[in-house]
């Protein structure tokens, strides 16, 4: 089996994505779930860089610019998510996901 560097990078990013997915599904602490989502976002950024670096007919900077915008949006998402965690904690004195079910119909 002879893997190209692009395939190695894609395997790396898919393994990171699955670690984030397992963390999101297995943990019940809201902060850890949010960190798992952040890992999955980072895995997507790894794919952009891998295809920019090894893909056919590389455009000058498109992949890099896309990753910069993705990092900016991910930073906003992390700030809002952790503010939500603090708001939930202030209401329930707890950040377990199973007990934050006040809105359940």
């Amino acid at each position, binding site marked *: 089996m002879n893997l190209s560097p692009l395939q190695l990078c894609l395997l790396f990013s898919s393994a990171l994505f699955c670690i984030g997915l*397992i963390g999101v599904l297995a943990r019940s602490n809201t902060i850890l779930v949010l960190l798992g989502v952040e*890992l999955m976002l980072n895995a997507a950024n790894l794919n952009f860089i891998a295809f920019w670096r090894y893909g056919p007919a590389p455009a000058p900077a498109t992949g890099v610019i896309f990753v910069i915008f993705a990092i900016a949006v991910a930073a906003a998402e992390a700030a809002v998510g952790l503010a939500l965690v603090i708001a939930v904690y202030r209401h329930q004195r707890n950040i377990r996901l199973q007990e934050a079910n006040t809105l359940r119909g």
Partner: protein
Amino acid sequence: MIAFLLIALGTLGTAAVALSLRNLIHSALLLIASWAGIAAFYLWAGAEFVAFAQVLVYVGAVSMVVLFAVLLTRRSREDLAIARESIGRAIGALIVGGAVLGVLALAVISTPLATAPEASPPAATVHTLGLQLMGPHAAALLIVGLLLTVALLGAIVIASTDTPEKTKNTT
């Protein structure tokens, strides 16, 4: 290629250990190491500007926000280790994650991906990046700035105390 394997093993190992620990502070610190490993991968791939942006945003800013959230949401001084998770959820998550990983790995390995023949990275210096950002992507840059402003103001509104009388009494 040896450097890539070391970076990948370090990143994946720290991420996996971080998401399986029970101490939240240790998890946050290990995830900082994992994000630094991702920045090292960007450096290895030749995207220096993205590597420094990753260090600034994740290793510098998001990690601090996460640490503050961990410290603000514990009930007592000793309340750092969270309760043990249920085994059923962990087994289900491992099965789902393993299945997704298997599908992704099989798809990546069996797809004949067209790669560039040369080994040198495409030129993306800070000069060309700045010209691209200010030229064709100027509208997107402005929208991202607006989005960041609105999101951070919204985060402050969500996380702040809602009753002004209570804060007046405490101060």
